[in-house]
C-alpha cells in the first residue's frame, strides 16, 4: 500500500505542471479560447511533441503504455490550468474505445494519428431522453449492404464540433432501453447526412448537438462487437470519470489556494480578512472536502482499469459522488469568501467554479451515482 509516484511519474508531474504554469496563465487561456476551434492548435501540437497525446497507448502504436496514474497526473494539472484542448474527448474517450475495442486495422491507423496530434475524436452518446443512462439509446444503425445506415440525434457532444472523427453509440438490436443491442461506430463528421451545431459551454469548452440522417457507414465503421458495446462503454466512461475526478481535484486545489491567498491579502476593518475565525474555518472546511475528494480520486484511479466490473463501478460511482459534493462546497465557498470580486468574469475564481460545477454533470452527477451505490448495497461489506 503506497501513494508514491515512480520516478517517471514524478518527472511527468513536474513537466506538465511547468507546462501549465508557463503556457496556461489566465490571459493566455482567454486568447486560446478565441481561436476557431475554441482552443489552441499550437498547444495541441505541443502536447503531441511532449508525448502526452500518446500516454495511455501501447508503445508500438506511438504511445508510452501509461497507466491511469499518468492520466490522473495530466488531468489534475489540466484542471489547475483550466485547459481547453480536447484531451478528454480525444485521448481518454475516443482513444479509450480504440485501445480497448478497436480492430487491428483501426488501431494501426488511428492510434498513431492521435499520438501525433493529427486526429481529434469526440464521443457522441447522450440523447435528449437518456439523461445519464448509457443503455438508453434511440439512435439506430440499420444493417444495409454489409454496412449500416445511421439515424438519430446526439446532444452535448464534448468537442463534437472540432473532431475529425466521431464515435457514436447506436442501437443495432432490441428496444430503446435494452442493455444488449448497442453498438459503436466510427463516423466521419463530413459524411452526407451529418449535421453539427457547435456551441460554447458555460465552463469555456465547446460541445455540439449532432444529427444523423441516413448516414451510410461502411463495414469497417463498427468498433468492437456488434450489439455488445455496453460493457465497453461502461469501461471507457469509468476511466473518463476517474480522469475528470482528477481534473476536478486540480481545479478545486487551485481554487482553494487562490482563496487562501485572497484571505492573506485582502484587508477590511483595518485587518486581513484571514484573521477572522469564521472565514478561517470556512477555508478549513474547503480543505477537508478537497482532501476527501483527492482521496477518492486516488481510489478511482486505482480502479479505473479493473476488469472487475461491479467493484470498479461502485468505487468509481462513490468517487464521483464525493467529487460532486466537494465541488459544490469548495466552489460555492470560494466565491463567498472572495465576495464581489469572485462574481466577476475577469477573475479566475468563477472560471474554476464553473468547470468544477460542470464536471458534476459529466458521466452522471452526485445524485445519480449515489443511487447506484445505494442500489448496489453500499460500500461496507460484511466481514
Amino acid at each position, binding site marked *: 500500500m503506497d501513494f508514491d509516484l515512480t520516478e517517471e511519474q514524478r518527472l511527468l508531474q513536474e513537466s506538465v505542471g511547468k507546462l501549465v504554469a508557463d503556457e496556461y496563465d489566465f490571459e493566455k487561456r482567454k486568447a486560446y479560447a478565441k481561436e476557431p476551434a475554441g482552443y489552441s492548435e499550437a498547444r495541441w501540437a505541443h502536447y503531441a511533441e511532449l508525448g502526452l497525446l500518446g500516454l495511455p497507448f501501447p508503445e508500438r502504436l506511438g504511445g508510452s503504455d501509461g497507466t491511469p496514474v499518468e492520466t490522473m497526473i495530466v488531468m489534475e494539472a489540466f484542471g489547475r490550468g483550466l485547459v481547453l484542448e480536447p484531451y478528454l474527448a480525444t485521448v481518454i474517450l475516443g482513444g479509450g474505445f480504440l485501445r480497448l475495442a478497436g480492430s487491428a486495422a483501426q488501431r494501426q491507423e488511428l492510434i498513431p494519428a492521435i499520438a501525433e496530434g493529427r486526429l481529434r475524436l469526440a464521443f457522441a452518446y447522450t440523447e435528449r431522453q437518456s439523461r445519464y443512462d448509457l443503455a438508453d439509446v434511440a439512435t439506430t444503425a440499420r444493417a444495409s449492404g454489409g454496412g449500416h445506415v445511421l439515424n438519430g440525434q446526439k446532444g452535448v457532444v464534448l468537442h463534437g464540433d472540432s473532431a475529425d472523427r466521431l464515435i457514436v453509440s447506436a442501437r443495432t438490436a432490441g428496444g430503446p432501453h435494452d442493455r444488449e443491442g448497442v453498438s459503436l461506430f466510427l463516423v466521419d463528421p463530413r459524411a452526407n447526412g451529418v449535421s453539427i451545431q457547435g456551441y460554447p459551454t458555460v465552463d469555456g469548452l465547446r460541445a455540439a448537438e449532432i444529427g444523423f440522417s441516413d448516414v451510410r457507414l461502411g463495414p469497417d465503421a463498427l468498433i468492437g462487437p456488434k450489439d455488445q458495446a455496453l460493457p465497453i462503454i461502461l469501461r471507457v466512461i469509468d476511466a473518463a470519470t476517474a480522469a475528470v475526478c482528477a481534473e476536478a481535484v486540480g481545479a478545486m486545489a487551485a481554487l482553494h489556494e487562490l482563496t487562501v491567498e485572497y484571505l*492573506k491579502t485582502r484587508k477590511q476593518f483595518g485587518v486581513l480578512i484571514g484573521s477572522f475565525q469564521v472565514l478561517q*474555518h470556512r477555508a478549513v472546511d474547503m480543505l477537508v472536502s478537497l482532501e476527501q475528494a483527492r482521496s477518492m480520486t486516488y481510489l478511482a484511479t486505482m480502479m479505473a482499469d479493473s476488469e472487475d466490473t461491479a467493484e470498479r463501478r461502485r468505487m468509481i460511482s462513490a468517487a464521483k459522488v464525493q467529487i460532486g459534493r466537494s465541488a459544490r462546497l469548495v466552489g460555492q465557498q470560494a466565491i463567498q469568501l472572495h465576495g464581489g470580486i469572485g462574481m466577476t468574469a475577469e477573475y479566475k475564481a468563477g472560471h474554476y467554479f464553473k468547470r468544477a460545477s460542470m464536471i458534476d454533470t459529466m458521466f452522471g452527477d452526485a445524485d445519480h451515482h449515489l443511487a447506484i451505490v445505494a442500489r448496489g448495497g453500499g*460500500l461496507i461489506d460484511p466481514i
Partner: protein
Amino acid sequence: MDLRFTAEETAFRNEVRAFFRTALPPEIRRKMVEGRRLGKDDIVRWQRILNEKGWAVPHWPVEWGGTGWTPTQQYIFQEEMQQAPAPQPLAFGTSMVGPVIIAFGNDAQKNRYLPRIRNIEDWWCQGFSEPGSGSDLASLKTSAKRMGDHYIVNGQKTWTTLAQHADMIFCLVRSDPAAKKQEGISFLLIDMKSPGITVRPIVTMDGSAEVNEVFFDEVKVPVANLVGEENKGWDYAKYLLGHERTGIARVGVSKERLRRLKELAALEPAGGGARMIDDGHFREKIAAVEIELKALEMTQLRVVAAERRGRSKKPDPASSILKIKGSEIQQTISELLMDVVGPYAMPYQPDLDGSNQPPIGPDYAGPLAPTYFNWRKISIYGGSNEIQRNIISKAILGL
C-alpha cells in the same frame, strides 16, 4: 501507487483477525455489538488477554513492550480490533500517560508504571479540563505548591472520564503562578487514594455517568511523581494530544457500526410490509455516509503512508482532518442507528443488563438513542472540532 496490501500485510491481517475471533470473549463482543456499556472488569479482562499475547501496546518502543510493527501493521491491527468489535484499550494509560512517561519520565517512573499500564494494574484517568478551562486549557488553575519533597495540590478537574474506577490520575497543575500561562504548568502523577481527593459523578443527558468531577483539597503528592521538569508540563501535554495521529478517525468503529446499521435496517419494519433497507431514501442516506467513510479511510491511509516514509515525527496537522471528519461520520451513523428503530427509539431502558424485565420493543433498540446523545461528545473531546479547525488554519493554511 498501489492501494493493495502486500502479501505479508494480508497475512498479518488474517492472523490478527483470527486472533480477535478466538480470543475476544463472546459476552464482551455481544455488549460491543449491541452498544451496551462495558464494565471495568470487561476492559481489564480484555487488556490482560492482549497483554498475554504481547499486543497490549503495539505502538510503544519494543523495549517497553511494543511490537515493532510498521505503521501499516499498526493501522491494520487497530482497524481489525475496532471491527471485531473489541474494546479499545484504556487510552488514558496506553495512548496518553504511557507515551509521555516513555518520552519524558525518569527510569523509576518507567519501571514502575509502564508494565502496570500494559497489564492495566493501574486504571488511569486524565486530569486536564477544569470548570473554567475547556478549549482554553492553558488557563487552568489547579495549583501545586512545592513543600520540601512534596507538592500540595488544590483545585478541581472536570469531565474526568471513568475516574470512578481510577487508581491514578495524570494532572496538569499550575506550579508557577507568576509565569506566563503556558510556562507555569507541570505534569504530575497522582494516586487517587491520596487523602483529600473526592470524585463526584456527572450524569450526562444519555443517563450515563462516565464522566466526573475530581476535587483536590490539600493533596500531598511526592516530588518523585513529577514527570520531566517542573513548569514544562505544557510541552508534554502538547506531545500527548498530538501523539495519536490516525486512531483518532476511528474508521474501524464506523465500519462496524455501519454493518450493524444495515443488519438492523434489514430487520426493522418500514410499514406496509416493507423493511427499512427497502426504503430508497434511507438506503441513500446510508450510502452517503459509507462514501464519506471510504474517503476518510483513504485519507487515513495517506497519513499512514506519509508516516511510514518518516516524513516527520512531529504531530501531523492532517490528524486534525481525521478528527473532524471521523467525528462527523460517527455522529451521523449514530443518528441513523437511532432513526432506524423509529418510534422504538423512545422507551428509556437504562439498566437492561441487570434486570429481569423483558425489553420494550426490539431487544436492540434500547441503547440506540442514548448512544446518539452520548456520541455528541466525539466532536467536543480531545480538542473540539473548532479547535481542530484553528489548528489546520494555522498549521496548514498559514492563516
